[in-house]
């Protein structure tokens, strides 16, 4: 129990970082109605691009920006495969994800792991977030505002604000219409193919950004880091929706609920680890969690459906 409580700040920090990935997954899965599996590859692409540039002496923000751009390029590839080549979205994502494995290896100079030298205090101080900061703040060696929860929290707030702004624009509304009803969107002159590509780019840009942050947090990028990322992203989206869906109606709050979903997910993971579960079972656990949360709404609809109250039916 003490272990668990001690591990909580770390779990929340990780959850917040994954929350940015989950916000990206929300855009494709919920807004565009596409299950985009590119995520498993582009997450590592972001991490790889960041770690290589940063280790090569680039400015941290420039490296993060490059990570996001690399993710957008991955999303662009999936988008083109889907819209121009007519490949079903799921398959297009799988193809990009597979190809990205080689690309990620190439970015990392054909090494499966590239580390950031955090034993050098100068390098460590430059980082935005790090697991070490969690410990340092707890020991009082670093100011409270350097805590990852605070830093990533701010980051997340800025991203939610930006997304909220964008999806209220003409272009953002066109994106939402594309996901809600492509027939209607085209009839209203919306280029649905363009919107899908753009949505996939934004989504994977966020995913890669999240990868760039996680690499800092773990002070290393590892070629397998993206494996199952889409499942964790979906878990966050679904947990957030199931728990906060009834109270959070506003779009910004929905994005917040996704981030909270990611945090809850990591707290649960931390709890089962504290109970002594072999970490190798985590992937199975993740898959089960998502399967259960995905089936709940389905079973509910099938066996416990309440009559739908139709507002204003009297006018019909």
């Amino acid at each position, binding site marked *: 129990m003490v272990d668990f409580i001690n591990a909580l700040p770390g779990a929340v920090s990780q959850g917040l970082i994954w929350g940015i990935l989950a916000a990206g997954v929300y855009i494709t899965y919920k807004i565009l109605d596409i299950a985009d599996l590119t995520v498993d590859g582009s997450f590592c692409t972001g991490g790889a691009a960041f770690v290589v540039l940063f280790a090569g002496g680039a400015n941290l923000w420039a490296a993060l920006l490059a990570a996001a751009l690399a993710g957008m390029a991955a999303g662009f590839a999936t988008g083109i495969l889907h819209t121009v080549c007519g490949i079903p979205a799921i398959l297009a994502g799988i193809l990009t994800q597979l190809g990205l494995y080689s690309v990620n290896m190439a970015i990392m100079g054909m090494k499966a792991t590239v580390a950031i030298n955090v034993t050098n205090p100068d390098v460590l101080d430059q980082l935005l977030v790090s697991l070490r900061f969690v410990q340092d703040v707890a020991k009082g060696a670093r100011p409270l505002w350097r805590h990852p929860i605070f830093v990533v929290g701010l980051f997340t707030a800025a991203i939610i604000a930006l997304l909220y702004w*964008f999806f*209220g*624009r*003409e*272009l*953002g*509304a*066109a994106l*939402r*219409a594309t996901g*809600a*009803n492509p*027939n*209607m*969107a*085209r*009839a*209203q*002159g*919306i*280029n*649905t193919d363009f919107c899908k590509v753009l949505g996939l780019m934004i989504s994977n840009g966020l995913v890669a950004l999240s990868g760039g942050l996680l690499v800092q947090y773990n002070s290393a990028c590892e070629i397998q880091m993206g494996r199952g990322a889409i499942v964790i992203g979906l878990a966050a989206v679904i947990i957030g929706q199931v728990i906060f869906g009834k109270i959070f109606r506003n779009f910004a709050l929905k994005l917040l609920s996704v981030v909270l979903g990611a945090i809850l997910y990591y707290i649960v993971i931390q709890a089962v680890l504290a109970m002594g579960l072999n970490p190798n079972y985590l992937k199975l656990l993740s898959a089960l969690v998502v399967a259960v949360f995905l089936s709940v709404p389905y079973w509910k609809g099938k066996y416990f459906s309440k009559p739908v109250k*139709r*507002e*204003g*039916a009297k*006018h*019909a």
Partner: protein
Amino acid sequence: MLEIKGIYKTFNPGTVNEKRALNGLSLNLNDGDFVTVIGGNGAGKSTLLNAVAGVWPVDEGSILIDGANVARLAEHKRAKYIGRVFQDPMMGTAATMQIEENLALAARRGQRRGLKSGIAKAERERYREILKTLDLGLEDRLTSKVGLLSGGQRQALTLLMATLRKPKLLLLDEHTAALDPKTAAKVLDTTEKIVTRDSLTTLMITHNMKDAIAHGNRLIMMYDGRIVLDISGQEKKALTVEHLLEQFSRASGAEFASDRALLS
């Protein structure tokens, strides 16, 4: 205004399911023509509208709107000229978006969509006024999700959306067929009002012969991917259902085969 010259469309060519849906069809619409389209099952009515709207490209022939050939233009580009209402009430609106958001999307039909606000404040007042004309109480529910509306309300809203920016051509694909008779009559009434008010060039498919006769200034009947009857002016005003059926069998050499058309 609309000039269709010899269009052909075959679905599933080279398979056992091959179906020649449009068979060298030609049609000219004048500015302000309100044309009702009738025909039996599989006559090619919806195919004709989809060909004009650009849901898929035609195999042959040209489609001119105001002199510009749109036959090779993508669906979303043709939307600049065309307002559409579909048979399925679910198809013309985005259920998960608000009424005002749907209207705002329609208000930008054929325009570049950039980073300007999705809905300007001044728009809301205009939408409220326009929704009032429907007399469905929707003007007080601007921020309700469209998914909460009934089929009739959604069709009425789709009609508003299709005509919010005056289209050069309005395509109505049996837009009252999925509604109960009372609602259908109301939506049809609204259609008539809007088409007359804006003198819109309109193609309206209907399965109801009485409606086809009662509305519009011109009636065309389709059979086997072609137009077999084209009646306008005084002759149309004098039409009766019996007369129409008789003319149809003379023109096509077949019985009028539409379960729905005969029952209604």
